[in-house]
């Protein structure tokens, strides 16, 4: 029987996809896992892979067509097989991958040694043991992306060892982090209601500070001189310092969830990156636990792939805080718009040498202005100010980061 190829939801928010280009022609042999086509989602260009073995019988949609998720875009089947009547356009759910029937016969036909990964389209179709499911749910692992070593590719406990590195769906990934849900007090509810009526769906206020970056500059110069491989930018330092400050001010490291505030214990910092046609915020996960060198490397790698539209959904969704820096464009200061459900975003301007009064004397120092946009339903003026104070202290005395 022929198997449908459908437009899959390749990101959590994807409702439709544009089939950029078919990678297989009608009549081409395909195996499970082969790339059939490139699909552009709301965020990135991703690969649509075959969920069955056989021959690509028909392309139902043409290159460049946009179709809703779950609609049939093609058919896979045995050579010469005909597709069902009316099978050209009817929307249908993604079919589960079927393993080829294995005839137990002659010893000359060995079974495949390595189990194939279970189909990725939805966890309920993945074969996994109950214990593996529990662990995956808690750690936010996508069972579909894990090769099962149990009978018939079933994912078992052992397969999840060391599987943390490659979490999948964004919501699931953040689910792996530890958080505390705080119920809304009557006062918080009232504050939320009044402010929303007054200013719009996210009642934002802004706090601006000027930071002395002289010592940060010295530290950076010293580090760069010491190790030419370890390039890093001031923005990497700001990400690292923000992460540190967030661990001390969990109220800022939170999500507004309408009926509650979710305070995260893990810190995942989104970094705004300008790309053609817009912007995307790849995430530095657990930025509070990473070294400056790790952050610098990750930012560069993620930004590169972001510009090439090659980010996977889990790489740009699920941040707990965001940093946006327009210093490289010569912007002195600006206000950034909060990316809900996050409750704050830091807008960073350029570093500029200016005359300032220090110790009663006029000095020329490197200064930088930062503005924190705060969702007032969660972050009050004082909370935001305390966070900024810590952040300023970190940046003005970078050694504090390793203290």
């Amino acid at each position: 029987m022929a198997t449908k190829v459908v437009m899959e939801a390749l990101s959590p928010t994807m409702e439709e996809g544009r089939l950029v280009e078919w990678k297989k022609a009608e009549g081409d042999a395909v195996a499970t896992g082969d790339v059939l086509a490139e699909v552009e989602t709301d965020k990135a260009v991703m690969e649509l892979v075959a969920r069955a073995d056989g021959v690509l019988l028909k392309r139902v949609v043409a290159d460049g067509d946009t179709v809703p998720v779950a609609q049939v875009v093609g058919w896979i089947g045995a050579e010469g097989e005909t597709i069902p009547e009316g099978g050209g356009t009817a929307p249908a759910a993604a079919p589960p991958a079927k393993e080829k029937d294995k005839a137990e016969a002659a010893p000359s036909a060995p079974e495949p040694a390595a189990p194939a990964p279970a189909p990725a389209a939805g966890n309920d179709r993945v074969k996994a043991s109950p214990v593996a499911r529990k662990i995956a749910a808690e750690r936010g692992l996508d069972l579909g992306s894990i090769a099962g070593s149990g009978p018939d590719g079933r994912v078992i406990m052992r397969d999840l060892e060391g599987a943390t590195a490659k979490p999948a769906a964004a919501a699931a990934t953040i689910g792996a982090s530890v958080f505390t849900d705080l119920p809304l007090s009557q006062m918080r509810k009232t504050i939320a209601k009044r402010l929303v009526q007054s200013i719009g769906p996210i009642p934002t206020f802004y706090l601006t500070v000027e930071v002395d970056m002289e010592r940060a500059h010295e530290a950076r110069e010293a580090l760069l001189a010491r190790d030419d491989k370890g390039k890093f930018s001031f923005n990497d330092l700001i990400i690292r310092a923000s992460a540190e400050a967030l661990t001390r001010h969990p109220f800022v490291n939170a999500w507004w969830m309408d009926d509650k505030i979710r305070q995260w214990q893990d810190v995942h910092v989104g970094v705004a990156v300008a790309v053609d046609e817009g912007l995307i915020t790849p995430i530095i996960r657990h930025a509070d636990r990473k070294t400056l060198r790790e952050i610098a490397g990750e930012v560069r790698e993620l930004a590169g792939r972001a510009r090439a539209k090659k980010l996977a959904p889990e790489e740009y969704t699920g941040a707990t805080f965001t940093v946006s820096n327009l210093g490289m464009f010569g912007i002195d200061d600006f206000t950034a718009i909060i990316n809900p459900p996050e409750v704050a975003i830091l807008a960073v301007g350029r570093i500029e040498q200016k005359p300032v009064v220090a110790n009663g004397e006029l000095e020329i120092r490197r200064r930088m202005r930062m503005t924190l946009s705060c969702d007032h339903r969660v972050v009050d003026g004082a909370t935001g100010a305390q966070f900024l104070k810590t952040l300023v202290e970190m940046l003005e005395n970078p050694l504090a980061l390793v203290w």
Partner: protein
Amino acid sequence: MANQTFDVIIIGGGPAGYPAAIRASQLGLSAAVVERDKLGGVCVNIGCIPTKALLHSAALLNSIRKDAKENGITTGDVSGDYGVAMKRSRKVADQNSKGAEFLMKKNKVTVIKGTGVLASATTVKVGDDVLTAKKAIVLATGSRTKGIPPIGLDIDGKVVISSDEALFLEAAPKRLAIVGAGAVGCEFADIFNSFGSEVTLIEALPRILPVEDAECSDVIAKSYKKRGIAVHAGVKVVKADVKSDSVSLTIETGGKTETITADKVLMAAGRAVNTEKIGLDAVGVKLTDRGFIAVDPATLQTSVKGVYAIGDVAGPPMLAHKGTREGIHVAEVIAGHHPKAIDYSNVPSVTYCHPEVASVGLTEEQAKEQGIEIKVGRFPFSANGRARASNETDGFVKIIRGAKYGEIVGAHIVSGHASEMIHELILARTNEYTVEEVDLAIHAHPTLSEAIAEAALDSLGRAVHI
């Protein structure tokens, strides 16, 4: 027959070897089994099967003695005749061996009588005949009973005996000492106590059934003492004085010595593997430092390409069901398949004394040693309706689960039917069900197995019937 060629030659027709031959044949290979004695090996002929027949006789005898009156059954004097029970056990063993012979015929496996010796990586000598293997040779030579010669306990078959002789005694000895209180020692203690012997059970480790969970050992030790079996655990036999019709054993514990005199002593402290005189050296098959044949756990291949080893010779646990699984596995490997790895952590252990002890996975002690965070659930059969109805309230179900995810770390059952009940938990553990899945399965009422669901619930802090 002279010189023949097969795809696979299996040396040893016990519970590892003959299933390997069947599976090989099913997969289209020509297979030969070389067996010097009867098909079925120790298990069928002088192990698992005849002891279970004798344990059945023993249980029946105890049941009549204990329960007849209150169940409205009138009996005269009840006495046991070990010789008669022994003859029945022989019949059962022979039937099983014949069954194995039938299976060989049915699956077109060639059975060659004689002692097989590895002559090269591809040939086996049986007497003057040379058999050639096109694909593989499988060593499944098993193990045998052993004494403790350094202290004078050489098995002589008369006063110092092993299970091999015990299974053929015409009468129960008046006084029997048993050295070793693992499964074999405990089962024979049960049998001979039931048939009227004065039994002394001696174990060097601190408790009887030393590989089982301590709570299980305790229940059996108490039950045995109640039945009049003298249980000495944590003692060492330091000297044996073997006479023509009796034996004196000097045992030592905490610096104190004691002498036990018996008509016979049954050696049940470990078994020796049959690795000698089968040509291992000549062909270069390597042994482990513990004397087992070294194998690659994934393929069961020895250090010599094309030569495999399964069952007792391939390493512990020396259990028939472990050997059988290896037999099936090795046949599939030889046929070019890639079977799933054998899950050695899920090999169950059963002692068929009364009540029986069955377990899978870790004991509570082992779990703690390994630093696993656990919760323990227990349910005693005294709170189980079916157990009361059948007067089998001894024992309990104990489930050790992971504190966080509820996976079954270990499961232990003491019950008249523990050997049958444990499989629910083996299935659960092998498939990584949590205690919640065990409870979600609706257990029929009234059954002993309800105690399993209750123990699962108890580990979650919500047992219903206690």
